[in-house]
């Protein structure tokens, strides 16, 4: 998120710049990036909710390892996995509750368990002993779900370490097949974080040149890492809206996340990252035709995350969706009239669009009230020159 600090320059022909080199609305791209970042902030789990979730999972953890617990001897540790772990949570479309996934890992090797289902059974049994959890509990195929009304669903995935397969590998019980299924949420997360951290060498040298001209503050580093996460959030939200009426055809989050991370090229800008990722996916689809593309789990190369695309109908639905997204995105990048940009953004991500515009304007107004707005002559956008704008009060009528 761009923060307003220092002086801001308002140009007659477009362009608002802060004087310490952090561009707020200096170009169409940086203004769009700022809006996209604000949209993502609207989409993600709010910080207060995040703290609440952490408190809830710690309480569950304490209960599981508490006195008299059948699973206490297994020394359970609970940690977040999936979007909660990698920071790409997206609020569901038509309800308030986020889905949050946690792994409850027991410090006992899988081979010492009699049956995979025992583990699930023990966790369910222990949770049922708690009056509150008993009412929230729902047993799923691989996990136990606790429903916190109007807050979130907490999916707890009981797991055992699988040190033979690798450092962070675990196995989880599968009720339908009554077997263990391999998984590696920590390995996936660290792969994703590594992808987030890449930067383009060309981009880097350009930034260095810019840095000579205008100082760039140290926080820039965290922002450049965030662009991939923002793209993942936007893709997930687009997916929720685009496939709303055919949700069975919607690509799963892990496929979208993996594809985005694979085709991410290290752009600092959210919109540039999205463009690069979309063209990467589009090219991969073309190269694979008439077959389908395969998305393997980078933490477990044997696992085909995209196995649902074996069904040609599912794959066709994905290709159609991505093709549509690419054409809409191209229009958004091609500097249409403001109303067109708004319409495209609303179609892509829905109602957070308006909130993003509002918040951008609010920061702008705060800068104006702080008398840091400057005006420059037409076209010339500069961070240092410009005349301070006198205070005015919109009046009348």
């Amino acid at each position, binding site marked *: 998120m761009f923060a307003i600090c220092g002086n801001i320059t*308002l*140009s*007659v*022909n*477009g*362009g*608002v710049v802060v004087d310490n080199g952090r561009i707020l*609305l*200096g*170009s*169409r791209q*940086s*203004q*769009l990036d700022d*809006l996209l970042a604000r949209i993502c902030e609207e989409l993600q789990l709010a910080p207060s909710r995040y703290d609440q979730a952490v408190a809830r999972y710690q309480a569950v953890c304490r209960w599981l390892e508490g006195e008299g617990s059948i699973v206490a001897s297994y020394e359970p540790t609970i940690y977040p996995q999936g979007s909660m772990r990698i920071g790409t949570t997206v609020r569901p479309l038509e309800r308030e509750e986020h889905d949050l996934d946690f792994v409850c890992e027991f410090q006992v090797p899988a081979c010492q368990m009699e049956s995979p289902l025992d583990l699930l059974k023990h966790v369910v049994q222990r949770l049922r002993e708690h009056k509150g959890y008993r009412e929230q509990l729902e047993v799923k195929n691989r996990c136990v779900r606790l429903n916190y009304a109007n807050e979130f669903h907490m999916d707890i995935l009981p797991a055992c370490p699988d040190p033979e397969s690798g450092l962070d590998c675990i196995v989880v019980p599968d009720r339908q097949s009554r077997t263990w299924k391999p998984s590696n949420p920590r390995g996936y997360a660290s792969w994703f974080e590594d992808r987030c951290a890449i930067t383009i060498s060309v981009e880097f040298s350009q930034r260095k040149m810019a840095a000579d001209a205008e100082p760039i503050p140290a926080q820039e580093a965290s922002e450049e890492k965030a662009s991939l996460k923002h793209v993942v959030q936007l893709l997930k939200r687009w997916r929720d809206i685009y496939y709303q009426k055919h949700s069975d055809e919607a690509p799963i989050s892990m496929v979208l996340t993996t594809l985005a991370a694979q085709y991410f090229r290290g752009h600092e800008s959210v919109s540039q990252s999205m463009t690069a990722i979309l063209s990467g996916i589009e090219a991969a689809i073309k190269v694979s035709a008439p077959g389908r593309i395969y998305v393997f789990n980078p933490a477990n190369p044997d696992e085909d995350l995209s196995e649902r695309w074996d069904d040609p109908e599912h794959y066709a639905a994905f290709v159609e969706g991505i093709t549509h997204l690419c054409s809409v995105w191209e229009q958004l990048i091609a500097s249409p*009239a*403001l109303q067109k*940009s*708004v319409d495209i953004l609303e179609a892509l991500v829905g109602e957070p669009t*308006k*909130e993003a*515009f*509002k918040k*951008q*304007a*609010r920061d*702008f*107004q705060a800068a*104006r*009230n702080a008398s840091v*707005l400057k*005006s420059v*002559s*037409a*076209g010339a956008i500069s961070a240092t020159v410009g*005349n301070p*704008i*006198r*205070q*005015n*009060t*919109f*009046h*009348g*009528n």
Partner: protein
Amino acid sequence: METRYYPKPHRVTLDQQIYRMSCQHPGFKVKAYLRQRAVTWVGRIRPTPMSDEYTTAIELTVGYRPKVRILEPVLRIRDGASCLPHYYTESGTLCLHEAYEWSSLLNVADCIVPWASLWLYFYEVWFITGSWEGGGTHPDKPEHKAT
């Protein structure tokens, strides 16, 4: 003892206004000029990079507040609103400032143009969101409300 001399501030003449505009905003052209009485500039303003571009007329008559009109595109009233916020419907001009905030000592180029640009930005946000984020007087009016 030395007598200090404070010069009386002089009003900015129309010629000075025209000169300053041509330096600061060369895109704005003088469209009408009544010697020592009134001048009208027309130019284009794009308040932010994603904004639309607005052909804007600024009319300055000696002794009056400057009048700002948007010629193109036509300003639109959003669904559910009865009028534009901070706008004189009768004269079709923008309400940019309170009476005391403008005086003949000030430059159009340094005040009116950026104020119009700000107004246009907040108008766009209002049109998109229904919320006027630019502050101002009469905040209780529905079209002036920030939500």
